[in-house]
């Protein structure tokens, strides 16, 4: 009896799905579906043509297969590419108009919108399946000239900005999943920070995957104009499902002269059950372009969920003196697999990059850090520092490090370090002697191991992330 209770508790905390009737496009991937999506979203013709061009490209290129975690072949014709809750055909004007059931869902997730609006000072653009639910704190942002809305809205209201920057970092000719996203993306966030404006609050989007069989194809575009600053948070949970769900989002960041973008992610999507059944495929393309001189982009990620995580948030350091940073914690347990890391492409002079990656694998999981540091001929006086540490818990899991280092400039320095080890018996013994039980001791040590990355997260996230690290490793020791 007690065992059952424990089992129940261990089950995925956010595993539920709301039964709002979905409004779907027909199954399958073809020109009609793309036209349907474009039409439903009342898009201008240039965007439709752009999508179709991506679709043409998609027919030619092949799905990549060099990654470490293998997965069963995805039937792209068997997916729905658009779904929206029915009651959203007419968009609500404020929070009170929302479907009560939907509000309930968010409550379970721990982000009651009203409360957040009042207490947290965070503007939330919540994406429920594919359509933007509600955008809060618009007024404060509008005052500063900041645009923070869904990308569909941006396409209607700020077509010039979208047209100028969409696909400028991740072109439609990129790899398979990025191109797929370009053809069928449904919604996502759009941020524009005008020159010399420091965004007064953390911008945050809570992603949520609902409706069975719907691959979610988000598109996020963040532009920081000259001298501006923005910190953006992305956090995810998804309901429990049996079929594997594909998530192929594209995130593009553009930092102009002297601008800074800080992008933080906490990802806790459904990882599948203990036997590795179900779970999300997280194949996301994230890329930032430091376009202007003195610009800076920093990625921070805490990856604890998904059956397979396969992503490399990257920085292209094009402007002179630009800076790229990557801080990552990736945790895999049970049958989870992750192949993640970053790419730092140094093109401008005096560019700097820093990579701190912490991988923890437990259970029967498999974790790979894969990264590229490329200093080109013209990037003189550039430096890179990379540190990737892996922690193994148990002898059924794997931890791998595959860094690619290319140095074509004699004035530039690259330093790379990597270690793999387990939690030392001495540390465990010390903690247990002080009265902690084994699980608490492991939690404490792991938190210390991750501290360098956790520190980079904004306050609101740091606390949550710390808890998440503990939850993810429950039951992995002893």
């Amino acid at each position, binding site marked *: 009896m007690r065992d059952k209770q424990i089992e129940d508790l261990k089950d995925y905390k956010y595993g539920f799905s709301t039964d709002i009737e979905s409004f779907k496009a027909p199954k399958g991937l073809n020109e009609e579906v793309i036209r349907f999506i474009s039409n439903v979203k009342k898009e201008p013709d240039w965007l439709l043509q752009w999508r179709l061009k991506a679709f043409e490209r998609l027919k030619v290129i092949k799905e990549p297969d*060099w990654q470490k975690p293998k997965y069963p072949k995805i039937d792209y014709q068997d997916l729905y590419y658009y779904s929206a809750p029915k009651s959203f055909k007419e968009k609500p004007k404020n929070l009170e108009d929302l479907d009560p059931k939907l509000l309930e869902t968010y409550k379970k997730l721990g982000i009651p919108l009203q409360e957040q609006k009042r207490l947290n000072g965070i503007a939330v653009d919540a994406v429920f399946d594919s359509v933007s639910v509600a955008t809060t704190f618009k007024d404060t942002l509008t005052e500063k000239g900041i645009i923070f809305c869904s990308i569909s809205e941006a396409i209607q209201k700020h077509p010039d900005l979208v047209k100028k920057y969409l696909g400028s970092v991740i072109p439609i000719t990129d790899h398979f999943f990025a191109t797929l996203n370009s053809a069928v993306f449904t919604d996502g966030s759009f941020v524009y920070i005008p020159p010399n404006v420091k965004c007064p609050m953390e911008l945050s989007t809570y992603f949520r995957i609902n409706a069975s069989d719907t691959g979610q194809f988000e598109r996020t575009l963040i532009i920081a104009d000259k001298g501006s600053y923005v910190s953006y948070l992305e956090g995810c949970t998804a309901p429990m499902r049996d079929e594997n769900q594909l998530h192929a989002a594209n995130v593009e960041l553009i930092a102009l002269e002297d601008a800074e973008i800080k992008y933080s992610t906490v990802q806790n999507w459904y990882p599948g059950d203990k036997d590795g059944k179900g779970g999300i495929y997280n194949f996301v393309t994230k890329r930032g372009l430091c376009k202007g001189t003195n610009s800076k982009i920093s990625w921070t990620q805490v990856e604890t969920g998904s059956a397979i995580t396969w992503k490399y948030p990257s920085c292209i350091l094009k402007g002179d003196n630009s800076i790229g940073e990557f801080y990552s914690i990736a945790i895999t347990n049970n049958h989870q697999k992750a192949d993640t890391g970053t790419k730092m492409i140094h093109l401008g002079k005096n560019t700097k990059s820093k990579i701190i990656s912490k991988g923890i694998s437990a259970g029967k999981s498999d974790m790979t850090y894969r990264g590229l540091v490329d200093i080109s*001929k013209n990037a003189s006086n550039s430096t890179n520092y990379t540190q990737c540490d*892996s922690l*193994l*818990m*148990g*002898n*059924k*899991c*794997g*931890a*791998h*490090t*595959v*860094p*690619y*280092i*290319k*140095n*074509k*400039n*004699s*004035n*530039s*320095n*690259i*330093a*790379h*370090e*990597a*270690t*793999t*080890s*387990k939690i030392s018996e001495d540390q465990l013994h010390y903690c247990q002697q002080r009265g902690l039980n084994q699980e608490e001791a492991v939690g404490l040590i792991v938190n210390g191991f991750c501290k360098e990355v956790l520190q980079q997260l904004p306050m609101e996230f740091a606390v949550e992330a710390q808890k998440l690290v503990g939850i993810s490793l429950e039951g992995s020791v002893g």
Partner: protein
Amino acid sequence: MEQKLKTDFDKFISMSNFSNQEIKLKKEALDNFLKNGFPSRKLENWKFSDIKQIIQKNIGELTFYNDYNIKNEINDEIFIKEIEHNKIVIVNGKVERLSFEYEESNKINLTTLENFNQNPNDDNSLLSLNNSFSNKIHNILVKKNYSFKKPLIIYQITNEKVSNTNINFQLKFELEENSSIKIINLSDDNSEKNFINNLFNFNLGKNAILKNYKIDKKSNTNIKYDYSSINQKENSISETFIFSSGSDYKKNEVSCNLEGQYSSAFINGIHLLSKNKHHEIRTNTNHLYENTKSYQLIKSVIDDSSKSVYQGKIYVDSKAQKTDGYQLSKAVLLNEQAEFNAKPELEIYADDVKCSHGSASGSLDEDSIFYLMSRGLDKKTAKELLINGFLLDVVEKITDEEIKKLLKNMIGLN
């Protein structure tokens, strides 16, 4: 190329006296090579050094037929005089002399192999090429409890008789329990534009010790691939040292399988490159059993528009608890055009391990140069001194004092 390979192969077989078994195996190897062709950058292991393209660009059309009936003269002057040693002299891929004058003849067994292992991996078709075109494979067996009294120097000579030719050579060593051998492999190239493909197999029994020093110093325009496969039983030790500098293109690949407990493998290497030379070292250490140890130190000095590549992989099987693996690669780039690529890789399936790797590349430290100049050295001497010290670190890892001294003189590092 396919037609050329087939006709050259038929000619080669008809001119030699292989047994039916050998011919059968060689045909299979050729078929395997024909299926895959030369490796290109599309294969992960050849990502930084596309040998298919390099051969096409620098040699063009290759001849695969190599006449092993020609008798080559050996000039005794090339032999090392500083130390007494046993010799194997290989000219253009043919073993011309095997002399173990310092050893007890009943402790060594020299044979040629009738059966050789087929290449198990498609990633490396060059091993198949080697199997199909190499001459009789000599097998050197060192019997139980016997240690070589003097080092064995393998002189690998090419002369002006060959050009635009693919030379394949293969040699196998078997070290029985408690035996040991020291080998120096010296390249002496007097030919231009050949593709030289070497394969060395070592099997180390319990407590066996192998010390293997590979020196490629003489400047030449040949393209070389050199593969050493080392299988190690319980408590055995292998030490490999690579000095890679002379050839226009060279890829050294060392693959160690640590199959028995307490076995250890040490691989140290130097790249000293100038002009437009392109060298690569790839190491593969597979920890397959408990309590095994591996260590790699690779240093590169890269000048002009040369290119140095290091790919190193430490693999730890789930059985191989208590593994100790360490790997460090460092590179100094002296010129704007120079390039360094590295891929240090860890693949680990056991939790009670200590594995780490480091890689650093950059220019010479300005502060150190300044310090030396303030002590009265000119800039050139200061730089030379720093480079000397940088590389000496690797040479000092050589465990045999006599050979260390010899190699220091030979390489010119003091």
